């Protein structure tokens, strides 16, 4: 239309248009700025509300914060969970803190500006209780839902599954449209089903029950069970729904039972691996050499304390310290073992009662030594990050990393020892000396030297066991006493002088113990296992795998 008009008219109209356009465009940044400042002030106001003592008031502030769309919210909530959010006692300004050499470095919440360092007395932590922590995690989970990384979105959905509501149902439905990751989609479907199972529409309910039947989440089971059992209000529930719920419940319980069995088996293996580690050194000193070494437990303790000392020496590298501690503990405990053999035991070969008393005395000396050097209190041995936490296979089965690694480690130690004894020259000499000392001597083997090294080997392995045990139990002067009985039990049960017997004995005792524990309790389970071994030894005095042939004499 403009093109058809005259040029002067054209000019005027362009000018008018420009003015109109300018009028239109001009207010935009102003409005934007005004909105920004409103947001800023409300954000600021809400943050200052956090600086209060009452948990109820803080909860209100958190609710308000959850409605603010600002990327700083996430940072603030995370800082709160990590207890890094403080406020100044003087004017209640909320700040981030970082601990630097006993002082606190402050950063502004609004723009991360550094505010200098202060002493602890000037600031107060914004404390949380469990309710608030839960609230924060829910808010964070909602924020996570829009994260680009699928793993983060998944963790967000998982968190929200704990407490579903009309709001989460809405959120999940929205999310489902744009989600493309299978794992996240499955979790979302479970979440939707968790809400829909309470719907009044029977077919929706049936669908939800079907979905939840595949889930192993505790919440899902609880919701399905509520429909299936429903003793008092049977009339209120549709018969079809009830039957479907009962079927789903059966399915869930079936797989739960299966996973519970696997879990128990793993617990048994884990206890067995601890027993194996504790006993394997003894199966050499007692099983192969025939020395009743009551100080065996203390050699384990020395290994655990070696781990502690190594951690003191490398405080900035805890992850590696445990690895370094393995050879170190082997050497330290091995040297102590050789010293015991050279100093005491070699005078007592063939006199078991005297050996027993002498080594018992040594165990008391070692305990007191540790008490005097390290104090009678337990020492902290830190667990490296790669050994903490658990491997979640599904909602019903999780295996803790420290136990898993110790099972693997104990098997590695076992097979390394087996290969060493069977394949190495020293292993050959050792077997020769224990089977026929005179003959071995006449073949040119220095039997005293072999004795010392064999005892050293058994002690060194006890030390290595100590490294593993330092990750599971308290490192204190009494550590060894707790394991000495168990070690003898395993060796005697498995068959003296037989490494395979020790392996089978340790794992079977561990598994039997763990299967007894649920119905007998920890105290009674242990007693029952002991009674079982006494009866077993009565009928088979040489254990599970007695030595046969000439070696047995």
């Amino acid at each position, binding site marked *: 239309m403009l093109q058809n008009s005259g040029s002067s008219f054209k000019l005027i109209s362009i000018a008018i248009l420009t003015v109109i356009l300018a009028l239109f465009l001009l207010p935009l940044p102003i409005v934007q700025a005004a909105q920004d400042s409103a947001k800023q002030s409300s954000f600021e106001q809400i943050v200052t509300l956090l600086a209060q003592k009452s948990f109820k008031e803080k909860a209100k502030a958190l609710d308000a914060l959850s409605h603010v769309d600002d990327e700083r919210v996430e940072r603030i909530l995370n800082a709160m969970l990590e207890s890094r959010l403080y406020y100044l006692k003087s004017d209640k300004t909320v700040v981030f803190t970082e601990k630097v050499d006993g002082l606190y470095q402050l950063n502004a919440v609004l723009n991360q500006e550094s505010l200098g360092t202060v002493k602890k007395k000037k600031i107060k932590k914004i404390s949380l*209780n469990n309710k608030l922590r839960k609230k924060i995690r829910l808010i964070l989970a909602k924020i996570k839902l829009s994260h680009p990384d699928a793993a983060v979105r998944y963790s967000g959905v998982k968190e929200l599954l704990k407490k579903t509501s009309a709001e989460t149902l809405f959120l999940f439905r929205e999310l489902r449209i744009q989600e493309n990751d299978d794992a996240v989609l499955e979790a979302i479907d479970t979440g939707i089903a968790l809400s829909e199972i309470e719907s009044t529409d029977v077919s929706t309910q049936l669908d939800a029950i079907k979905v939840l039947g595949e889930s192993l989440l505790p919440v899902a089971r609880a919701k399905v069970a509520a429909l299936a059992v429903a003793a008092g209000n049977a009339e209120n529930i549709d018969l079809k729904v009830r039957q479907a719920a009962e079927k789903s419940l059966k399915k869930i319980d079936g797989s739960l039972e299966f996973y519970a069995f696997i879990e128990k088996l793993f617990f048994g293996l884990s206890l067995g691996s601890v027993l194996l580690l504790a006993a394997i050194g003894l199966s050499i000193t007692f099983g192969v050499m025939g020395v009743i070494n009551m100080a065996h437990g203390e050699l384990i303790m020395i290994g655990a304390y070696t781990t502690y000392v190594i951690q003191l020496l490398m405080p900035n590298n805890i992850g590696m310290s445990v690895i370094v501690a393995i050879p170190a503990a082997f050497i330290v405990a091995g040297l102590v073992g050789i010293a015991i053999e050279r100093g005491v035991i070699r005078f007592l070969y063939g006199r078991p009662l005297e050996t027993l008393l002498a080594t018992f005395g040594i165990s008391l000396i070692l305990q007191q030594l540790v008490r005097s050097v390290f104090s009678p209190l*337990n020492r902290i041995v830190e667990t490296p990050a790669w050994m903490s936490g658990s491997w979640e296979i599904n909602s019903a089965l999780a295996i*803790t990393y420290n136990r898993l690694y110790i099972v693997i480690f104990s098997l590695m130690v076992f097979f390394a020892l087996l290969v060493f004894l069977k394949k190495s020259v020293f292993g050959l000499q050792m077997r020769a000396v224990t089977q026929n000392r005179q003959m071995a001597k006449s073949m040119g083997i220095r039997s005293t030297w072999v004795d010392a090294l064999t005892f050293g080997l058994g002690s060194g392995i006890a030390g290595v066991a100590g490294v593993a045990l330092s990750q*599971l139990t*308290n490192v204190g002067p009494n550590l060894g006493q707790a394991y000495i009985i168990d070690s003898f039990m395993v060796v005697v049960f498995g068959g003296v002088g037989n490494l395979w017997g020790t392996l089978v004995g340790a794992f079977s005792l561990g598994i039997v113990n763990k299967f007894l524990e649920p119905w007998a309790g920890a105290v009674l389970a242990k007693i029952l296992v002991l009674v079982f071994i006494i009866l077993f030894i009565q009928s088979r005095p040489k254990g599970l795998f007695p030595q046969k042939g000439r070696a047995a004499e």
Partner: protein
Amino acid sequence: MFLKKKFQYTAFAASFAVASFCISTPTFSAETIKIGILHSLSGTMAISETTLKDTMLMLIEGQNKKGGVLGKKLEAVVVDPASNWPLFAEKTRELIEKDKVDVIFGCWTSVSRKSVLPVIEELNGLLFYPVQYEGEESSKNVFYTGAAPNQQAIPAVDYLMDELEVERWVLAGTDYVYPRTTNKILESYLKAKGVAAADIMINYTPFGHSDWQSIVSDIKKFGSTGKKTAVVSTINGDANVPFYKELGNQGVSAEDIPVVAFSVGEEELSGIDTKPLVGHLAAWNYFMSVESDENEAFIEKWQAFTKDKKRVSNDPMEAHYIGFNMWVDAVEKAGTTATDAVEKAMIGLKTPNLTGGTAVMHKNHHLSKPVLIGEIQEDGQFEVVWETEGTVPGDAWSDHLAGSKDIIADWTAPIKCGNYNTKTKKCSGQNF
């Protein structure tokens, strides 16, 4: 056999230590007031009790700097009962008969206290017992400066029920008298509040238990029925460290299943990485983190005395602090250290506690205490999330057990009895 042997060794070593102690300071004995310290310095309980011995030495040193008591210097006689319960009785006899101490501060576990009781009553001695315990006891010769169940266990359960809306309960404990009695009280209390038997799970483990995998996994399963679940833990001693480690590893967070402990304090936590434990609870009458002038001064003195700037303080230490100050006041008031006079003077005494309130000694030999519930923080300290308004007087005989409902203890005239039935108006004489 080995164990017995070991005890004999330690007993021998301990008595040797005492003997040498006595030889080194015989000249003062005429002018000093002797205080016996009966805490295990070796064995499983050493972890907790050594601290209390040091606390007593610090308090005695402080009092001596102020000029002693009745113009006399105080002298500590330290013995080591080596976590061996019968040895506690022997050492008590030795302290009273041989060392002629005027008062004993000591014991931790209830077993050790129970073994001391007959001796201390027979010889008419005086014992200050500083640890929370199961109640059901009031001896004329013992002052209980720790909490009775109504000052710790019951308020903690109330908190869980009212504030956290817990409906399912796991009562986990070490297998001996304190957890068993406490759990019996709690069980009947919960049932009276309408909790079904199926919603209570009770579990006991031996001292020093370290393999918690299956128990923690059971707790997880017990708590997965959709009802809010909490664990009430009376697990004692160093078994707590692997227990909490396992909780952390299996991912039992405080938001899902909170654990409230009655025997875990700052000292025990200083042995663990507390990051996975944030939010788990403990109920005590004192926390190191409580802000008050008295507490600040006490912690400063304690860290100077132990020459360790990171050393923590805990609830039983406060109990000794209150007990010791009250005993000093009572001796000054009575003008003598004779047991009967001091016992009489003790009742009704008031002394400031470390949390900014006042402790009062009642007729049943128990104190008034504030009850605090704290949540574990990342730095191994507790943050108070709930506390009673004012203090709660200790109840020697629980109101929640059928057998002891009508029983009270009153050591003033005219009742003068530790086990008095208010219905039959009779004193049974069965004080413990």
